[in-house]
């Protein structure tokens, strides 16, 4: 890992006066050397960019904002899981497949076995946590890299998703969830909106527009945003304030050292795999109940977007360092760039070129800022 020669910082010994070997005080430095700083600078950069290029396209109107916040919030849900796991020193490449698989676990029992929405959602969560547990357990037992274990899970889960949906429906989409779930509170929990009253009032005040049918353009805050904020808050508190958070850092920083001082590394890492699976299931549930269907291509490649968000947010790929707030900024950057490009009207053929370039610029900028202010070489 890092050795003292390559780290910023200073020390003093045996003296209590102001240390003459430190050129200036470090309280400012401490704030700006937080892992999320660079990501925050990236967020600013992105907003400035789109403020200029897409300012008058509806991107910053109420429904435009709703659009990119929803996309970012969705990504945040899985980015939080990925970030926590990454701080804990592991990867999960099966997140995307898990989203597809969890969707099937929710909708097949509901549509084909007549289970209630609550029962099948619970079933999906239990199933996903089991898969997460297995991922973690195999990684810890065999000491194989999580990259390779979860890659196998990626194939297996996606395979099950395809095979089961074709088995039950002869198609790769299982629909009809909305009709079955009618009247249950579960769909609202994952895909409803809150604050309709408030937004109605906004519309009355003219702050936001109204549709032809009289409804405000934005009916309320989608639950997916609430989930994203909730999960992020919980993960942030756990990571920074709780004993378990210290164990996550320790397990990711140096699993051997952590084990030697009595941290239950296996338990910590397995829990993190389970948490990642939990986040993927929340993502899946939000999609299933919003769209009323599960499909075998749901979540394709989402694992990368989650990892990108975490890395933009300052998590180290090698583990032991990172922040949830940063990962949320990372998700915001990714979501805003993704949807923002559409608002600017760039030809679709060039979409990916722009996405890649913007990402690179955001990460580079992030890095430059961090180096500048912390005085690293």
């Amino acid at each position, binding site marked *: *890992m*890092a*050795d*003292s020669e390559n*780290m*910023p*910082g*200073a*020390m*003093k*010994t*045996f*003296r*209590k006066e102001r*240390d003459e070997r430190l050129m200036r005080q*470090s309280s400012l430095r*401490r704030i700006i050397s937080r892992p999320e700083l660079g990501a925050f600078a990236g967020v600013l950069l992105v907003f400035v960019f789109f403020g200029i290029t897409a300012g008058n396209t509806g991107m910053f109107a109420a429904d435009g904002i709703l659009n990119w916040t929803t996309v970012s919030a969705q990504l945040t849900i899985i980015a939080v899981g990925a970030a926590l796991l990454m701080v804990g020193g592991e990867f999960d490449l099966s997140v995307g497949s898990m989203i597809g698989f969890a969707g099937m676990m929710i909708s097949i029992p509901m549509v084909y076995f007549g289970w209630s929405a609550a029962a099948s959602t619970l079933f999906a969560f239990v199933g996903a946590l089991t898969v997460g547990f297995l991922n973690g357990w195999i990684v810890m037992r065999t000491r194989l890299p999580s990259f390779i274990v979860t890659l196998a899970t990626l194939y297996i889960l996606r395979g099950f998703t395809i095979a089961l949906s074709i088995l039950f429906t002869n198609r790769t989409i299982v629909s009809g969830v909305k009709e079955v779930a009618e009247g249950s509170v579960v769909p609202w929990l994952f895909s409803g909106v809150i604050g309709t009253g408030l937004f109605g009032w906004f519309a009355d005040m003219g702050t936001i527009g109204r549709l032809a049918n009289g409804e405000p353009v934005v009916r309320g805050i989608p639950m997916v945003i609430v989930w994203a904020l909730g999960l992020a808050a919980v993960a942030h508190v756990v990571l920074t*304030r*709780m*004993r*378990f*958070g*210290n*164990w996550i*850092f*320790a397990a990711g*920083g*140096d699993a*051997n*050292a*952590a*084990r*030697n*001082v*009595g*941290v*239950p590394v296996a338990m910590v890492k397995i829990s993190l795999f389970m948490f990642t699976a939990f986040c993927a299931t929340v993502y899946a549930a939000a999609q299933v109940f919003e769209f009323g269907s599960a499909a075998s291509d749901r979540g394709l490649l989402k694992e990368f977007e989650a990892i990108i968000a975490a890395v933009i947010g300052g998590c*180290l790929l090698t583990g*032991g*360092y990172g922040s949830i707030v940063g990962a949320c900024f990372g998700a915001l950057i990714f979501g805003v760039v993704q949807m923002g490009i559409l608002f600017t009207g760039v030809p679709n053929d060039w979409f990916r070129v722009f996405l890649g370039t913007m990402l690179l610029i955001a990460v580079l900028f992030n890095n430059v800022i961090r180096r500048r202010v912390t005085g690293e070489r």
Partner: protein
Amino acid sequence: MPADNRPLIEVHNLVKHFGPVVALAGVSLTVRAGEVHCLLGDNGAGKSTLIKTLSGVYQPTTGDFAVDGEAVTFSSPRQALDSGVATVYQDLAMIPLLSITRNFFMGREPVRKFGPLAFMDQKFADRVARDEMKKIGIDIRDPQQAVGTLSGGERQCVAIARAVYFGAKVLILDEPTSALGVAQTSMVLKYVRQVRQRGLGVIFITHNVRHAYAVGDSFTVLNRGRTMGTFRRSEIQLDELQTMMAGDKELQELSDELGGTV
């Protein structure tokens, strides 16, 4: 030395293999309360392997040991810590990217419970970390500083302070002074004495015979995985110990030639 000098750790004929490598070929040892037991020996003699077995990192191949009279088999370092055996490992077991406080309390965080939730008591932890470091002679500027930014010697002091703080019965130190300056070394040796006075047992590993002789009550010399002998301080002189450690005659001569400074 306090009157109560019951045996705290008794090791009997411990054997440890790593695949084809025989690291320990039958080692016996007794550490008593209020006693500093020095473990000496060449590079690769098996000192670290022995103490890692005692602190639950490795499981012995055969043989067993007792802590405070009770036979134990530690399956994890946590269990060893729980029975009061605290260790400073040769590689320190620190996470460079984490703060001093977090490293200090790693695995044994002070918590405030809100129902089932265990929040870290950060203020208390910071205070204790700062105080304990001050006791060992290091006035840290900020307990939130990352351990990776400390010099090697300072890092070693964090590990020592941590072990002393959590060591209830036995404190094991694996070459704690190897990277330390003169001043810091003095502090650590003084510290070892204090700990002994509190009635703990100490296992102290070093290559510096003078350091060993300065604080040790008894000495065990390991060689190639076997005990070469255990001696009480009264039974052996500094230069005899030195001779045992230096091995071959040829080397002994060399050492003399260099003015006995080694």
